């Protein structure tokens, strides 16, 4: 299932510059990146190195200044805003550092949220949300509101929301950044399971080496350049 030539994400010559105060700031410079389908990749690097910027490009939240982004055969750098939104709705699951659940919705309703964009009947939406919550082990917290959950539980609801529409790709931006060690380990184990058992392709930004160690491959981003580190090695 994990053929080396089966590349889900293919970045070529990705450059991202920001205009700030009249001068342009080059955050990413001619990056190439291949992420095989079904892999679990970590993205590390110093703060401000452009990890989130790169993740946002892959997830279709932002567009590169130059270069091409191919996700599962689709050139998303060329899509219109509307098409890009559709791409995100159908193909990407987002996991944020601060969970970003809607406080007015219950766990089950938060998980249902992405399905409102798909032609899915209400009862089916409910059923799929329950299934996703069962996957993350929160079937007994369906009707709890986010404020009634612990940080780790909130993040698990967010993961359920990310997988509910069965996306090609999960992107996680420092998913354990706000969690204690134990909750963080649970989240990482859950991501591992999603990767191994459900074959989800995952890209995770982190600056925690222990978290990165769970991934199959670690990419380092520094001064606009990427370098790869094989599993298990310490920093180059």
């Amino acid at each position: 299932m994990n053929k080396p030539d089966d590349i889900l994400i293919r970045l070529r010559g990705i450059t991202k510059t920001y205009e700030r105060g009249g001068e342009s700031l080059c955050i990413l410079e001619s990056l190439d990146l291949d992420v095989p389908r079904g892999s679990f990749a970590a993205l590390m690097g110093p703060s401000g190195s452009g990890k989130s910027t790169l993740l946002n490009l892959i997830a279709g939240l932002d567009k590169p200044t130059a270069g091409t982004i191919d996700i599962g055969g689709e050139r998303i750098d060329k899509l219109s805003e509307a098409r890009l939104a559709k791409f995100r709705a159908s193909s990407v699951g987002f996991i944020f550092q601060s969970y970003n659940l809607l406080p007015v919705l219950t766990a089950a309703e938060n998980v249902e949220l992405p399905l409102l964009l798909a032609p899915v009947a209400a009862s089916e939406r409910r059923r799929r949300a329950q299934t996703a919550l069962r996957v993350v082990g929160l079937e007994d917290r369906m009707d709890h509101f986010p404020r009634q959950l612990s940080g780790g539980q909130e993040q698990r609801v967010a993961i359920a929301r990310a997988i509910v529409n069965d996306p090609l790709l999960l992107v996680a931006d420092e998913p354990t950044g706000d969690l204690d060690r134990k909750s963080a380990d649970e989240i990482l184990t859950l991501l591992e399971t999603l990767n191994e058992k459900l074959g989800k392709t995952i890209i995770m930004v982190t600056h925690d080496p222990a978290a990165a160690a769970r991934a199959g491959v670690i990419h380092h981003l520094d001064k606009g350049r990427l370098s790869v580190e094989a599993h298990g090695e310490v920093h180059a």
Partner: protein
Amino acid sequence: MTLASLAARNLLRNKVRTSLTLLGVAVAVVTFLLLRTVVAAWTGGAEFAAKDRLVTRHKVTFVMPLPKRYIEDIRAMPGVKASTYCNWFGGKDPKHEREFFGQFACDDGYFDVMSEQQVSPEELAAYKADRTGAIIGESLAHVMGWKVGEVVNLETGIYPADTPWTFTIRGTYRATSRNVDKSSFFFHWDYLNQALPEARRDTIGWTISRVDDPARTAEIGVAIDRAFDDKDTQTLSQDEHTFQASFLAGFSAVLHAFDAISLAILLIMTLILGNTIAMGVRERTQEFATMRAIGFMPAHLRWFVVGEAGVLGLFGGALGVAIAFPLIQGMLGRFLEENMGNIFPVFRLPFGATVAALGLAVALGVAAALLPARTAARVKVTDALRKLA
């Protein structure tokens, strides 16, 4: 869960703020409706006035009577269709000393001329057959607890008598127009006249005439007054409509001011709604960014914000109407009609203004949300999400 229920949940998120906003909108709507009711009450009388009716009275004052024979001259005037006459009685029921109601001794044709005061044919016949019969307004019957067939005694300083004046209620009249008094007491002019000493007989307080052509009412009034110009008693004829219109002209500045205040209140309502919506949108920047990341479109967020404002306007408006209705229709309206009936004969919530207030609350809520909706739709997703980290 649906997008609508999500929008509804958002309204309930900050209950204190939502309640205060609803209350603010409601107060604005109540004030608006109060102003519209005052304006309608003031101008309404003129609209209700029968345009084909003339009142002829003594040129100097109402209190001075006209000779009874004038009625024959007026009835003979070209253009006059029917004419009736009344005298002011000014009595009180000794058992209800504090109840004030008008009593009029009228000619039997009265109810033909005053078609807004309707009596059933049977009761009218019974009234005409009884020399001491009386017809009373439905409200008066209700307030005094008088029933048809009941005997009522009245005392008056204007027409002193050894024994109280005795009447038998023979029927009630129903007012088909709301500005017509519903608490009057009518009895036969002949009964009064025959009981008076010789010297006071055969006088009438005023006459009420209906004319053939409403367009010529004023003209006929002038003709009537001219006919009595060289007699010992001169008259003044006024048609109901011009009388009310000339009365209103003096108030036009006030009415314009009320219109201006009404507009100001609508503006305040818009600002209240706009402020609440803008605050809600600003607080939810990150939630909107999350929704956009998940795949919601700017149009979704725009509808979200606008819909929320519309619902807020609708509920605020409905609350305002719910408060205004018993306040104006029940308490204030009844009080003013009973105690200041000459200025506000009909102090009632105008239906059109009520519908307009509701519609405006929704429309202005939507208008107030347009700018915040644009802000929500234009949330820069990556920037908003970065602020979280």
